């Protein structure tokens, strides 16, 4: 089962070897440096991976992860525990990334969605005919590279839905688009990824034959 957005923490250590998250939060509210670091260690991979997937840039992802944690720590005194801490942090991280993308004037949702679709996006009749098949499993690194190659709008929807587990209604709220738009973008993102992965496999097959 894939983890949803309510389960965002790093794999847990055996009980008794480290303080609970609630304890870390209370200590962080008092300015305890170790508690801040403990919370960071628990969530850093998830937050950084999210930033990296959405920006496809290591330096930007590090800056954004840093900004997300700083915003979190500045507000931690107001955390009352009504919602899961990880959900709070995750939503905050998404907002930090979206603000960054907007500042860079990158479309959070592709503008082409406002039209009826372009020729490129129209369904193709010949799909799967002479293509390389994506049989078996998909290599994680290849998929990662393909996700990085997606246009920013497609990439954001794909990351939020298929990687991070957000629902379309949540994405629509976050990105400020319609639910239908989110669904349509996701489908196009997956189709684009399929093309990219196939091209990659075809290139590799060509190299093997040449070698």
């Amino acid at each position: 089962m894939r983890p949803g957005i309510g389960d965002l923490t790093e794999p847990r250590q055996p009980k008794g070897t480290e303080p609970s998250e609630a304890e870390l939060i209370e200590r962080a509210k008092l300015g305890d440096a170790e508690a801040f670091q403990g919370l960071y260690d628990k969530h850093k991979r998830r937050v950084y991976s999210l930033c990296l997937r959405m920006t496809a840039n290591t330096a930007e992802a590090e800056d954004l992860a840093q900004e997300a944690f700083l915003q979190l720590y500045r507000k931690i005194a107001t955390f009352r525990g009504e919602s899961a801490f990880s959900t709070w942090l995750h939503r905050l991280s998404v907002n930090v990334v979206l603000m960054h993308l907007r500042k860079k004037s990158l479309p959070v949702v592709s503008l082409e969605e406002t039209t009826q679709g372009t020729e490129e996006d129209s369904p193709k009749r010949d799909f799967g005919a002479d293509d390389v098949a994506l049989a078996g499993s998909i290599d994680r690194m290849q998929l990662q590279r393909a996700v990085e190659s997606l246009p920013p709008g497609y990439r954001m929807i794909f990351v939020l839905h298929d990687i991070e587990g957000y629902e379309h209604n949540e994405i629509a709220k976050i990105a400020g688009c319609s639910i239908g738009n989110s669904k349509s973008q996701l489908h196009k993102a997956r189709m684009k990824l399929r093309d990219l992965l196939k091209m990659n496999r075809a290139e590799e097959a060509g190299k093997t034959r040449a070698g």
Partner: protein
Amino acid sequence: MNCVELQQSLAEVEDGSSLEQRAHLRACPACSALVNELNLIVAAAGELQAAEEPSPRVWNSIEFALRQEGLIRPQRPLVPSFSARWGAARWLVPMAAMLLLALGIYVRRESLPNQMAQQASVAVPAANSSDLNDADLMQEVVDNEPAMKTQYAENLRQVNESIRDAQGVVDESPNDEDARRSLMDAYQQKSMLFQMAMDRSLP
């Protein structure tokens, strides 16, 4: 439903499980392969979650900012243990930094404006004398947290640069309040850097 309609319908029913979709998929190997491949992509996507580790630079910068903003408060043990190598000298490094800072504050706040130029020039060797302790700081980092060496070296370089720049402005315009404040900030940052290194080295 034809192939084009099926592909369009996948945006709404992603896994091809509606009655119409299933009817088409049974009769069309190409569309069936398409749906299988999209499902493979969705399954593989979950593995990308939380897969990457940020560099140590990220936490170091966060910690630095938290200390600057006063969100982290020092919580020292009452009786700290000392390493055999450093002994009591372990405390001299942050103390020297704090003394330097206190001296800087005293000199700049208490002096008359027309004496600033002379005192500012005296402060140059003070800043340089603090450089003598930079090696101690780096040694401490190397001993206790070698992974942070590069980041500390960079922070130290930046803060020394800030001190030099601010000192230069103060030398040129001794009555410039902003310049004096910048110099104090730079000294405070350096003091904080020493403090961070010493906190890390405590057991």
